[in-house]
């Protein structure tokens, strides 16, 4: 299973990758913003995309829109501080499959990842 992690925070990328490793996923590609993420997305196939919302250059919502425009149905989980209902609706409309609000407990992220990681 190959996962793309897009977040401008190196700290968050490390936290997410640690959780991915804990559920057995080691094939991970990192990107620091939505533009870099989309370049990676176009270059190779992914089974899951995890992205932040607030990022420089191209934000997470634009990145998700870019992916859906290609016709891809890859599961996309947004991990963000944007917890307001109106923002969650915007993200779902853009094509986000799953949503996790920061701060989160490690177990919450693991539980979300378990849904996408094959046993």
């Amino acid at each position: 299973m190959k996962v793309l992690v897009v977040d401008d925070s190196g700290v968050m990328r490390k936290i997410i990758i640690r959780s991915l490793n804990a559920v057995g996923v080691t094939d991970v590609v990192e990107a620091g913003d939505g533009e870099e993420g989309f370049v990676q997305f176009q270059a190779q196939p992914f089974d899951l995309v995890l992205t932040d919302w607030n990022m420089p250059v191209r934000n997470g919502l634009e990145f998700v829109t870019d992916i859906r425009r290609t016709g891809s149905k890859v599961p996309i989980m947004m991990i963000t501080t944007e917890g307001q209902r109106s923002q969650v609706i915007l993200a779902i409309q853009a094509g986000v499959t799953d949503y996790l609000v920061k701060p989160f407990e490690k177990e919450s992220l693991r539980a979300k990842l378990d849904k996408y990681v094959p046993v």
Partner: protein
Amino acid sequence: MVSNEEVMQITEHVLGTMLELVTVADSEEVLLSGRSEAFTGCVHISGEWQGAVIVQGSPELGRLIAERFLQLSPDEVSEVDVIDSAAELTNMIGGNIKGLVPGPSFLSIPSVTIGSDFDFQLPGTRTFTNVVANCEGQPLRIKLCESKS
């Protein structure tokens, strides 16, 4: 609009949930500027409401946050780790505070300064929330500044 209690609740929640650190409100203002390696993080909110959230902490707290975020031992923590971790902490606290101010609004990318010989100012703003807290025995301050215009 946003009370000290709400800012304190968000701070406790962020530090408790992500880092398992206990934070309590403190009444004693601790001077952080001028302390070597103290950190100051800032994130701006723009849109219907204009302002900024400032998070300041002691050098010891900066290192503790980096240790917990990155799962490092104390001697493995570098200054870059402290800066990155303080930026993420500021982003999370600021992002959650953004949910309490009138929207729609947008959050900037966080900036962080570390050191002792500087004075941090946000011209054209007034401080309307100033929370002084104690996180695992270390001083922490969260300020919410509103643009005067």
